[in-house]
């Protein structure tokens, strides 16, 4: 057993696993960044009065929420080259995960925008704000508070979901752990190391989320959500995995 522990300790500080963890982190952060950008743009489009664009967004949501994310990843990696677009596994992974995440973030941002009532917008207009100013000073600040908790959940979901890009040979945590284990059949050690890295990352995300929530509501002292609740949230299924 002490044998296993020392091997795990060795893996934990090894460059191979550290690099793999960085890869997982990079996939997560990039996919979430682009996913959130897509989400906010598409949510604003859905709130707008431009019918054709709304239709396009609807089709996008339908496609990316209605098919497995694994299919989307393999599709981007294997089908785009047929049209002459050859992308690395990493880029393909980021694109597929971002597009998938964008669909979920659109829903999250849209419910945030809709949670700010019509009367609040009218109150902003009545003060002499233009539509864009009502959006900026009245709606978005309120919507932001509403979307932080579900967005935090998506971050943690994405961290775990990023393991799926192992199927297109991106050297992230799960694939590296698997490769390491299949070389010496020490599955316990390799997979435990990956698990520890995942747990460390999700815990960091959870703490950051807590601070953002507190920062957005400075007057409310003490966390409204207990650490137990946060842990449960972390272990919940991400909304986008099938």
């Amino acid at each position, binding site marked *: 057993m002490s044998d296993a522990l020392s091997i795990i300790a060795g893996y934990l500080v090894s460059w191979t696993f550290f690099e793999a963890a960085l890869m997982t982190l990079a996939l997560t952060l990039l996919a979430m960044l682009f996913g959130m950008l897509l989400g906010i743009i598409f949510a604003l489009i859905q709130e707008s009065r431009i019918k054709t664009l709304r239709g396009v967004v609807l089709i996008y949501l339908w496609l990316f929420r209605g098919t497995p994310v694994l299919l989307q990843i393999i599709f981007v990696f294997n089908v785009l080259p047929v049209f002459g677009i050859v992308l690395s596994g990493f880029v393909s992974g980021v694109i597929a995960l971002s597009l998938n995440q964008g669909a979920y973030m659109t829903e999250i941002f849209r419910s945030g925008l809709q949670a700010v009532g019509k*009367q*609040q917008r*009218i*109150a*902003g*207009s*009545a*003060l*002499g*704000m*233009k539509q864009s*100013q009502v959006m900026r*000073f*009245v709606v978005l*600040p*309120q919507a932001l*508070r509403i979307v932080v908790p579900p967005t935090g959940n998506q971050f943690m979901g994405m961290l775990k979901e990023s393991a799926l890009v192992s199927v297109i040979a991106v050297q992230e945590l799960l694939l590296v752990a698997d490769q390491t284990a299949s070389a010496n059949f020490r599955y316990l050690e390799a997979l435990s190391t990956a698990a520890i890295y995942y747990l460390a990352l999700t815990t960091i995300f959870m703490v950051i989320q807590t601070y953002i929530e507190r920062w957005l509501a400075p*007057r409310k002292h003490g966390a409204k959500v207990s650490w137990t609740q946060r842990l449960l949230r972390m272990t919940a299924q991400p909304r986008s995995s099938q």
Partner: protein
Amino acid sequence: MKDEINSALSFREEASTIDVVPGKSLLSVKHVSKAFDDQWVLDNVSLDVEVGKTQVILGPSGSGKSTLLRCMNLLEPIDAGAIWFSGQEISAQLDRAHLVRRELSMVFQHFELFPHLNALENIMLAPTRIKGMSRVEAREKAMVLLEKVRIADKASLYPDQLSGGQQQRVAIARALAMEPKVMLFDEPTSALDPEMVKEVLDVMTSLSEAGMTSVVVTHEMAFAREAAQRVVFMEQGRIVEDVDKDAFFSGNVGERAQLFMSNML
């Protein structure tokens, strides 16, 4: 932003040459009609609001009072007629509606304070963000307004930490912060517990006494008696009575208004 401020200022300058004339109508509703889904909600409504006067609008629920107020500051488009303010036909320049609304502030039945800002920030938001006033100046003015509505000690509290009456007084201060020429009140005390009605009406009464031009939709007869100069009675989208306060309360009105009054008491 710069252009916007300039045009807002020039709007005020153009306006100021006209609105100083006493007894002159500052805000006029001329033969306005408005329909929602094929239903006429305002039917050929005409109304003049004079400088420095307080005009109370009475009428049963659903008679179109809120719609009339929202048409006045161009929050609702009208289907026929015109709205004139400070000698300009504002209903014909909808691209400038946001500038007009800086001159016609509104107070709502449900306060509509911004929940993410405290009382002081609620008041400072529009002056700093859309008028370009410095934060220091805006804060000073906001504090003066909070004194005026007698709630300065609550400046740093958030809306959900204030009672309904306190929220409504902050909302009045927020509306005043834009230094409007007209205040529009839409049933400002209807959502309040009875014991809070007076503190809000007192603020409104002192505003009226100070000469703020006001249009007040209310069911508070005592306020109408005390603060109004003119009283309008609406029913089914029409103005049925538009008379001096004294005439109204001496019973010098038609049968519909009398019936309404007797139901109110």
